[in-house]
């Protein structure tokens, strides 16, 4: 395949992925938006008003970046894991496997599809958050950079999960028992200063803490973590996951007998 053919193959996968989640928008776009609105209403307005300030900010301004990031993470991940596993389950992944499309194009296509949904839902949630909280963007490059890298990283993780999954149960185990606890303990709702030295240090092994803090820094200018370190961590994890995912596709693990 020449470069033009590879580009056509890549855009075909991305277009198909976007069409998929747009076709089933009541399942893919509406629920995360409703969930986040409920978070804004309950944690931001009803409870947030009684909490007062967190790290020097009104509570709703503090949690809003974390809630946006939460929707980006969960939607990037769930789009790729459900789409790729669905293709394995229906065996239409074979359409790609018999074609000359290189594995790295297949990987990038699925990841771009996941990022499209993650960033699309993130944009919707950001627009809604403007109704509940006032923002003045602190750093556009940091905000855009970290949200892109986070979406990339969790799309890659979703694909790895899908490759290993043997049933629909297997694609919900990681989001339920790993992703959700990491998000909730990743500084979305509180500053790690509240945890004390020990639990604050334990929190540092949670990669989501770095993403949420970098995003919060980009939006409102406060962070518990060094921003350069945040980018380094997310970049490192993304590179690692990319090579793991590509290796799985190259080997044909659980895809070719």
């Amino acid at each position, binding site marked *: 395949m020449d470069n033009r*053919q590879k580009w056509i*193959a890549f855009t*075909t996968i991305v*277009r198909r992925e976007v069409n998929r989640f747009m076709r089933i928008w009541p399942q893919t776009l509406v629920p995360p938006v409703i969930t986040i609105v409920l978070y804004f209403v309950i944690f931001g307005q009803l409870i947030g008003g009684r909490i007062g300030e967190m790290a020097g900010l009104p509570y709703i301004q503090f949690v809003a970046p974390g809630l946006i990031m939460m929707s980006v993470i969960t939607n990037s991940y769930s789009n790729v894991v459900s789409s790729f596993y669905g293709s394995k389950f229906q065996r239409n992944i074979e359409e*790609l496997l018999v*074609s*000359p499309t290189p594995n790295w194009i297949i990987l990038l296509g699925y990841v771009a599809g996941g990022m499209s949904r993650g960033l699309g839902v993130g944009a919707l949630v950001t627009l809604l958050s403007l109704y509940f909280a006032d923002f003045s963007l602190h750093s556009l490059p940091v905000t855009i950079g970290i949200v892109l890298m986070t979406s990339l990283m969790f799309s890659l993780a979703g694909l790895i999960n899908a490759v290993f999954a043997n049933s629909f149960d297997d694609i919900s185990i990681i989001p339920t028992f790993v992703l959700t606890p990491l998000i909730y303990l990743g500084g979305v709702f509180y500053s790690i200063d509240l945890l004390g030295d020990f639990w604050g240090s334990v929190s540092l092994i949670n990669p989501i803490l770095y993403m949420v803090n970098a995003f919060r820094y980009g939006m409102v200018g406060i962070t518990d973590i060094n921003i350069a370190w945040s980018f380094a961590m997310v970049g490192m994890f993304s590179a690692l996951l990319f090579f793991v995912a590509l290796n799985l596709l190259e080997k*044909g693990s659980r895809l070719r*007998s």
Partner: protein
Amino acid sequence: MSQSTAPALQITQLTKEYDDGFVALKGIDLNVAEGDFFALLGPNGAGKSTTIGIICSLVRKTSGSVTIFGHDIDADFSSAKQFIGVVPQEFNFNQFEKPIDILVNQAGYYGIPAKIAAERAEKYLKQLGLWDKAHVPSRTLSGGMKRRLMIARALIHEPRLLVLDEPTAGVDIELRRSMWEFLQEINEQGTTIILTTHYLEEAESLCRNVAIIDHGQIVQNTSIRELISQLSKETFILDTRESLDSCPEVECYPLKQVDTSTLEVDVDKAQSINALFTALTEQGIDVVSMRNKTNRLEELFFDLVAKNLKEKANG
């Protein structure tokens, strides 16, 4: 090897051992010439689908080599895959997508621009009688339509080698005949076709050459004509004008009475069938029609597989 002289498919010492230790292929060699209509026959579990899986890279081979028009599937997989189209045994498309989208997307995976992909999708959906279903979810198609959709999908990048794994399984007779005509047409236009089938009549009607695979080994690789010439006898059904009270006896022709006006007879290849008619006429029996009892190729196929089993049993 130059592309023009290379066979459409060349398999050399191909082996496959699955993770559970099952050896599906035990070093098979196979050559299919360009333009051929080739049948790969064998009982269930013989290794047909494994062979096809390896050719289209859905199954990883253990050893050996496979080339498509001279392009090795490992060293030059991109070119090799451009030349081959595969129609699998099981439905393997997204049942929620529309046929037109399935075809256009498949073309995209081969790097075909959207405009050309759309034109080809229309062409093949029309040729296979699916154009009026182009925009409905594919899960609503009948079994025969789904099978035709998979043929259209395999042709969208206009491969020079088309491999079909049991393409007419579960398809009614009328539809099967129309699919045969379509396959013959594209073969006449130059596409090499390899077919696996359980319907041996299908292989006899369509194919010029055949390989029979059993227990992971090729037990016969020849032309259909040559294969059929190996038959030692045929069984015929004779319909008589009048009802018969008892089964007539004719020397050297073991007749059996099926019902009052139907006889069955095994005729050795060396025997003349005229002598049988003469003898029956002398007994006042008028035969009004005659047909083969079983598919000739089927009979031979079972003989070969049984022979292979016997040889294995004898070590």
